[in-house]
Structure formats: structure tokens, C-alpha cells
């Protein structure tokens, strides 16, 4: 097979770019997936006061600023060696739960569900949220808008601003909430629980009751046996805001947990010559290439990964759904797990959409739990830092993966170094592997390359909800996914563009 050197300039065009190389027989030899990377953030931060980070980092990305705000706030707590009071943690988690409801809702209805509601081969102009509304009914659209509105309202009440919160500071928060606000937040949370249940029912009706879709989910084309990571609480239940990072192997057995400050003992980064973005992997296992299995340090950090890495959900309805998820997709394993404690795991990447909805329900239930906490309106929402700032790590689960912020400062709290591992970066290796496997399963000698085929390859990475980071760049409003297919001599056979 002819080796094609990819011009590095093409990385910076703002495209999600996939190159597929065919061999002499017309089979897929290799694929490359390139994501444009925003550059220079660490350099931009150095020299600034560390307490600016919660508001600076939430400008990294227009999609999950709340996640960066939270990770930065926790890193600042660590830098100042200060433990926020319980109320501050609860208020932050309450804000974060409401954000999760809005974010997971948007992903499922705008991005995930069109493939199933409209069908994976539907014309691209119909395969979007508008198509879903037209097909399923106006009620869906109203609920989606309402879920977003309520999520943003809570972010504004606790975070001080819509979308880009500004109230988390070293040691806690700059404000609390009143009883009137609490009542409003509780009311919205109870609506969100019902909405999450409605969404799971919709998934049941449209996806799980359609054997063709279930077959597609279970198919080998969308399956990878990798490690998984995700944050868990002290009972090893999924938590988005606080806890340790649980790591499970491809058999679903926990190999360990790490605290935020230990992340460098567990995670290392591999570089490839064809992309600036690095590929994180499990240091203890080692980088063995883009391969599945126990000997490969490739891991995944997504809603599916979080469910796999945990022992369950901390709220009752989400726990019921968690059990249904595993008994449906990995029945024997789950029975063995329940009786003997052996590992349990689901490797089917398209099941991530279901896992995301289970997390949606958990986030909504947690929202209500925290909103009804008897102390939540207390004004004890900050511990004033007294220690000299040094170095600290903050980790939260962003909707699309574990988010790590690591800061170093001088004795005045001025940043001297910053390291971030953002959600999607965790998944760069598995996303690349998923694209290759889908392409290998779907493209053979004589295959006619169609838009539908392209979409089925695209579905492989869509399940990860990848963040291209450039989300804030709103116009022209599309980031084309460009797929170039080359033959064994490197000649272009086909170029397909899709505004994904």
C-alpha cells in the first residue's frame, strides 16, 4: 500500500477529516481521523491569577463551559489547599446536575436520536432535530426546549450567569440561593425527572422494540473491547462532580481507582506524526497501538464508560434503568456479576446513547435530591483560603468524558504552568478505532459509496459525542466532515462531505 503523507496544513482547516486508505483488493487498509485543535490555551493562561481560571476556562468551549468552570474551581481549591464547605459542594453539584440535563438532552435529541427516529439512511436534510419533531410530534420539541430552559435557569440562579457561570471561587461559592429560588429549582427538577423517564420510554419504543436497530447496536462493527474510566463516589456509584476515577478492564473488573492528584500515575499521552492532538492511554498497561484488548492501554471515557466503571447509579430510578441496561445487553455477565462480583461490561458503542439517557435520569433525580437537601439554602457556602497557593488538580466528569485541570502557581497564585486533558481527548484513540472498524465492516471491493454508508461510518464516532472544541465558532455554522477515500496508489477515489 502506498504511504500517503498528509499535509499538516489540512489539519487546520476546521474540518473533522477522515482519510480512508484502500489496499490492492479494495478493502480498507487504514483510516485517519483528524480533529482541529485549539492551540495555545496553556500559554494564554500562564502569568494570570489562578482564581481567574473558573471564568477563563469556561470560554474554552461553547458546549460545556460549566464542566470547565467546575474542574477549574476544584483545581483552584486544591491549589489553595482549601476544602469548600459541604453546602458549596452541594450547590456546585446541583448546578452541574441541571447542566447535565440540558446537555444530554441536546445531544440525544439534536444528534443521537435522528439516526434512529429518521433512520440511518434517511436524507441528511431530514436527519436532524427538525425531522424528529415532524415525525414524532410537536410535544417533543416543546419538551426539549423546556429541558434546556430549566437547565439554564438553574445554572443562572446558582452560577450567576446563563451558560457561563462565574460564582465558583477558591474555597466555595460567592453566593448561595434563597428559599424562593430553591422552591423554583425543585419544581423544575421534578419536571426534569419526568422528562428523563419520557426520553427513556421513547428510546424503548423507537430503538429497543425495533430488532433491526438492536441488531445494529449489537453488531461487531460498533463493538470494541477496551478499558473504561469514570468517576465514582465512595460507594462506587456514578458521580459527575466528585470522587475518584474508577478504571475497569475489558472484562469489567476494576483494576484500581485514582484520586485527582494521582492522575499522572495512571494516564500518559501518545503522539502520532499525523495529528497534533495526543492520544491518552493507561500508563500501567502501556500504548500498544490502536488495538482492543487487555494488553492495550486504550481506554474510553463516555457515558457508557462511566456505567461500566461504576457499580451502579446513586438514585433509585436510574439504578433500575442501570440494571435493565445490563440485563438487556449483557445478561449472563450481569447475573454472574450480581452473584459473584465478577466483572460486567457492555462494549457496544451505540449503546452509549442509552447510557446517556440513564445518566440524564440520574442527573434529574440528583437535581431534586440536592434541591430538597435541608441545608441547601444555608449561607455557609465558602471557606476563605489561608494557605499559600502551590499546585492542584481538579477533575469532574464532563458529559463527553473525564475532564482534568492541573495548575501550578507561584506563591502569589500566578499561574506558571497549566495542563488540561479534556473530555473528547480521552476518546481520541477509541474514536479512531471505531471509525476504522466501521469502515472495514462496511466498505469492501465493489461497495458503492453512498451518503447512507457515510452516515453509518459517522455514527461510529457520533456515539462518543465528540467535541471539536471549536463549537464557539458559530458561523458559517457547519463543520464539514470530509471523508476522502484513496486507492492503493493513493489516488482519490471518492470525496464525500457531510455537514455533521
Amino acid at each position, binding site marked *: 500500500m502506498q504511504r500517503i503523507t498528509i499535509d499538516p496544513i489540512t489539519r487546520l482547516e476546521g474540518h473533522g477529516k477522515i482519510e480512508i486508505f484502500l489496499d490492492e483488493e479494495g478493502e480498507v487498509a487504514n483510516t485517519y481521523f483528524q480533529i482541529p485543535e485549539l*492551540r495555545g490555551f496553556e500559554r494564554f493562561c500562564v502569568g494570570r491569577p489562578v482564581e481567574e481560571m473558573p471564568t477563563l476556562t469556561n470560554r474554552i468551549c461553547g458546549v460545556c463551559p460549566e464542566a470547565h468552570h467546575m474542574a477549574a474551581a476544584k483545581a483552584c481549591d486544591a491549589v489553595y489547599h482549601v476544602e469548600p464547605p459541604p453546602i458549596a459542594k452541594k450547590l456546585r453539584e446541583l448546578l452541574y446536575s441541571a447542566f447535565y440535563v440540558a446537555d444530554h438532552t*441536546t445531544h440525544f435529541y439534536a444528534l443521537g436520536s435522528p439516526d434512529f427516529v429518521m433512520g440511518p439512511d434517511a436524507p441528511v436534510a431530514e436527519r436532524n432535530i427538525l425531522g424528529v419533531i415532524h415525525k414524532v410530534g410537536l410535544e417533543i420539541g416543546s419538551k426539549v426546549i423546556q429541558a434546556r430552559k430549566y437547565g439554564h435557569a438553574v445554572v443562572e440562579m446558582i452560577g450567576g*450567569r446563563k451558560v457561563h457561570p462565574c460564582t465558583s471561587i477558591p474555597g466555595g461559592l460567592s453566593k448561595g440561593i434563597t428559599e424562593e429560588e430553591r422552591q423554583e429549582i425543585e419544581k423544575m427538577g421534578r419536571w426534569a425527572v419526568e422528562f428523563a423517564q419520557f426520553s427513556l420510554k421513547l428510546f424503548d419504543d423507537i430503538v429497543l422494540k425495533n430488532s433491526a436497530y438492536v441488531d445494529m447496536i449489537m453488531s461487531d462493527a460498533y463493538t470494541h473491547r477496551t478499558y473504561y474510566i469514570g468517576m465514582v463516589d465512595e460507594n462506587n456509584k456514578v458521580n459527575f462532580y466528585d470522587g475518584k476515577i474508577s478504571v475497569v478492564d475489558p472484562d469489567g473488573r476494576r483494576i484500581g481507582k485514582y484520586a485527582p492528584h494521582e492522575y499522572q500515575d495512571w494516564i500518559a499521552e501518545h503522539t502520532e506524526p499525523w495529528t497534533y492532538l495526543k492520544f491518552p492511554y493507561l500508563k500501567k498497561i502501556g500504548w500498544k497501538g490502536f488495538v482492543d484488548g487487555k494488553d492495550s492501554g486504550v481506554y474510553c471515557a463516555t457515558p457508557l464508560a462511566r456505567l461500566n466503571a461504576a457499580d451502579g447509579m446513586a438514585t433509585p430510578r436510574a439504578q433500575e434503568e442501570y440494571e435493565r441496561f445490563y440485563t438487556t445487553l449483557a445478561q449472563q455477565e450481569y447475573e454472574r456479576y450480581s452473584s459473584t462480583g465478577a466483572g460486567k461490561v457492555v462494549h457496544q458503542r451505540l449503546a452509549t446513547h442509552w447510557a446517556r439517557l440513564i445518566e440524564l435520569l440520574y442527573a434529574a433525580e440528583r437535581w431534586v435530591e440536592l434541591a430538597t437537601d435541608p441545608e441547601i439554602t444555608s449561607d455557609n457556602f465558602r471557606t476563605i483560603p489561608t494557605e499559600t497557593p502551590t499546585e492542584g488538580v481538579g477533575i469532574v466528569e464532563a458529559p463527553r468524558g473525564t475532564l482534568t485541570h492541573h495548575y501550578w502557581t507561584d506563591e502569589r497564585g500566578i499561574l506558571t504552568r497549566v495542563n488540561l486533558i479534556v473530555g473528547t481527548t480521552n476518546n481520541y484513540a477509541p474514536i479512531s478505532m471505531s471509525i476504522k472498524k466501521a469502515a472495514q465492516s462496511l466498505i469492501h471491493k465493489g461497495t458503492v459509496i453512498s451518503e447512507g454508508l457515510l452516515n453509518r461510518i459517522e455514527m461510529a464516532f457520533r456515539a462518543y459525542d465528540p467535541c471539536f472544541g471549536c*463549537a464557539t465558532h*458559530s458561523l458559517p*455554522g457547519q463543520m464539514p466532515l470530509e471523508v476522502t477515500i484513496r486507492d492503493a496508489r493513493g489516488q482519490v477515489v471518492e470525496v464525500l462531505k457531510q455537514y455533521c
Partner: protein
Amino acid sequence: MTKTLVIGLGNPLLGDDGVGWHVAEGVRQALMGASRPTGGEGRRTDEPLPSPYRGGEGEGSVPRPPSFVEVDCHVGGGLSLMERLVGYDRAIVIDAVNLGQGPVGHVTCFPLEALPHPSVGHLTSAHETNLWTALQVGRTMGAHLPAQVMVVAVESPYVYEFSDKLTPPVAAAVPQAVQKVLELLGQEEEP
């Protein structure tokens, strides 16, 4: 009374991507300056100007009876931008574009639907839907949304590197883009 929203889009920390914020600030200053001689309308002249960098979304309202013009900045796109446009009769959005159809700093103005491929796809990021689709969603839901969205765009490919400064050709284009927005506002106020 016609309600118009002038909204600068983009990320103010991402080089030329933040040009929309600079232009919006210029428009706001110009409108406030224009309202000062008349006195009594709009804000008091001694009132401190809210900075879009400090104030974030939702600030910078400049009522100018008999029409109403609000100037704001916004970081998101798609559904969140659509939600911000609810309740307005007209909208002018300002943003950096990388269409490759002119030199860096080239200012253009066109209706939203003139953008390439306005009808397809999901995207502003991979998570969202494009503004055109989002507006259709909003209208389908019965929301009051601007009948027309005009775009004032400044060409630049330098939108991937963190910086709070514009490149010189884009900085130089800000007054022209401000003028373009003011012209559009003037046209809109004519009966």
C-alpha cells in the same frame, strides 16, 4: 415597536473569532453616543458602560424609542442562539467567517439563508444543530423569532489560537463592520 437584536457572536478569547464582540461593543458605543445629544432617551450619559467582557450575555441593552435596539454578545450557536433571538422582530448577527471568499478582514453582509448549505446538518459543533435548523425548530414550536436574520461577517482563518487580541487586518475592519451594522439599523428604522 420593532424590536431589533444586534448580537456579536464568537469566543472573545479565540483571536479573530471574537471580532463579533468588538463590533457589537462599537455599535453599542455609537448608539449611546448618538442618543446623548438628545438627552432623556436611552441611558444617562454619565452611566458607566458595561463591558461585554465583564458583563457577559444579557447585558448592554440600549432602548431607543420608538424602535428598540438591544446589543449583546453570545458565545454559543444553534439552539442556544435561537433561544436568545426569541421575542425580536429583527436580528443582526456579527461573526468571523472563514469562507475563503476575500482577504483577511474583508467585511460582508448577507441574509442568513445565503450561507452555504443552510438547510442541512446538525452542527455548530458536532453536538448541536445549525442556526437555520434551530430557527425552524423555534418557529415550529410557535416562538416569535426574527423574520430575517442579517449577517455581518468579517473574514479570517485565525480562529483556532487562544488570544484576546484581533489580528491587525481584522482589528482594522472593526469600524467598517460597525458602520455596516449602523447602516442596517438605519434601513430598518425607515418606514
